[in-house]
């Protein structure tokens, strides 16, 4: 009988489960200011789908402009594990939010492609009523909830990560403006003192009207590995280019040096072409930045010889 030889591919995470991953928790990164009548930002999607920790659909992220709770109106884009593209949405909790039962509405709208920016805004509108706040998307008013709260309000422009702190984020909040008075002038936010982030995430000021949310360059930062055909893809989300991709074919705990360096990408991903297919050669990977190194991941294959 002819024997079939099957190459089995495994991906291994050598550092085990990342610390800080707590089921059902949330992490936030971004801007918060108080006594505002409105805020807007052009919120960009990443160039490619960000890594989300499997296996369930609660894992994901949303990027939004919002009044602070307990009564709130929010608009932005969201992306959950398993989605192909982000979805624009508006949402509110405006009734019984601090009593019970609290009632919510989330309205999904059209999608937002990767690497695109859309302007999202939440604004107080006294002409609609003394407690009215409206959500705008791309300059178009989508909804006004007229029983939210009085103005001014604390407002937030943030990334929210759901379920796992291994999830990668890479969002630019550009063209930001805030409205400090009801009928006043939209002004630049103070990004020097109003950015906050839950570890392991970071909110980084880019200019007077833009910040980006990414992952902190902590020692052992998360490195995602996946296969595509005979290639290995590596993704990470710290923002500290240039990056060094190091690999070793036999030692999982190798020390990165110039002999193990295979690429210096300026973006946060690397495609190791043709890394798979030879059960006699394994690959272990680590990413090195100027200040730190990632966790270690690897792939190995071995041959199965089925019995008769």
């Amino acid at each position, binding site marked *: 009988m002819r024997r079939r030889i099957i190459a089995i591919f495994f991906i291994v995470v050598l550092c085990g489960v990342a610390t800080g991953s707590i089921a059902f928790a949330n992490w936030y990164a971004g801007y918060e200011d108080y006594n505002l009548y409105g805020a807007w930002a052009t919120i960009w999607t990443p160039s490619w789908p960000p890594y989300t920790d499997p296996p369930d659909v609660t894992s994901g992220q949303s990027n939004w402009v919002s009044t602070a709770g307990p009564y709130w109106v929010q608009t932005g884009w969201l992306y959950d594990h398993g989605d192909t593209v982000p979805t624009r949405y508006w*949402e*509110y909790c405006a009734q019984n939010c601090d009593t019970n039962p609290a009632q919510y509405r989330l*309205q*999904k709208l059209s999608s937002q492609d990767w690497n695109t920016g859309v302007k999202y805004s939440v604004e107080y509108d006294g002409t609609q009523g003394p407690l009215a706040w409206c959500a705008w998307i791309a300059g178009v008013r989508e909804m006004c909830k007229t029983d939210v709260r009085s103005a001014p309000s604390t407002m937030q422009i*943030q990334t929210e990560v759901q379920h796992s702190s291994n999830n990668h984020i890479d969002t630019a909040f550009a063209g930001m403006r805030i409205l400090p008075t009801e009928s006043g002038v939209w002004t630049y936010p103070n990004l020097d003192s109003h950015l906050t982030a839950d570890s392991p995430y970071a909110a980084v000021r880019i200019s007077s009207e833009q910040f980006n949310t990414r992952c902190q360059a902590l020692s052992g930062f998360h490195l995602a590995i996946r296969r595509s055909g005979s290639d290995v893809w590596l993704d990470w989300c710290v923002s500290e280019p240039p990056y060094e991709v190091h690999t070793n074919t036999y030692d999982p705990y190798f020390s990165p040096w110039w002999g193990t360096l295979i690429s210096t990408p300026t973006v946060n991903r690397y495609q190791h072409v043709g890394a798979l297919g030879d059960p006699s050669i394994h690959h272990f990977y680590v990413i090195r930045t100027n200040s730190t190194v990632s966790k270690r991941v690897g792939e190995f294959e071995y041959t199965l010889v089925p019995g008769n």
Partner: protein
Amino acid sequence: MSARSNLLMILALAVITALFIAVLFSRGALQSGATASNPPVGKLSPTGQELISSFTALKNLGIPIKEVSILSESPMEVQITLQSTSQSEVATVDDMWNKHIAARWAELAYLTGPRVDSYQLHLVNTNGNVIGSEKVFLNSDYPSQHLATVEAAAMDEKAILAILQEQLDFLGMTPILWKAATGGVVRDNTKVIEVDVSTPDIETANRTINLLVPDVSRAVQRINAKTGAQIAIFRLRVIDANNTALVDYILDLETGTEVWSVERGVDANWYPKPAPTRSQPTP
């Protein structure tokens, strides 16, 4: 009678007539709640009258519509007032369902009649006080504005329930009610599915609720797309031992809307929400 007296009488009659007409006009305008662009109620176009009539049909289906008025016909702006059974400022869980059905009725009006460009939804308590209101502008990015007509479903309610019973995983909670209905508050040939699951208490529910809702939601959408079940609305309620709905979740697969209520103490965390404030507290 002198010519002068006649002239005075004619002038007086003209003034009285003008005042009478003005009063009539103002009464009509008040009844329509209108601006200059709005005709009085009695002068609604056939299109406007058709829209008002369609909401009468919804009222006959049990949705407590107190009043529907056309605020403008171009663009078409409708105001829907719903009657709550609440005596306080707090809406009931039934109100959430009624509001959603009324909202989708306005959003889908174009499929059988005139298109609504925006709608205002008011909820009033038994004292007549408005206890909830919102205004939605039905722009082209709303999924509800791009629906096609639906033919009869490939499977009946019993078959759909059988598939759902086989494939939905309630993560240890026990289904205690399965219900399916076709038409009615949703379009002909589309369905409303309602499922109640039981849990002993909030603590038990909190162990799985954040997985349960999105998992079931995603599974229903997948089954709907795969089987052509034509589910328009899926409603999931998590009921505790005291028969309290800890979570009442409504997924509208046609409009892209999710509405839900959560009892105090339930650790609901599956949806986007603001961060806890870090700077000066909101007054």
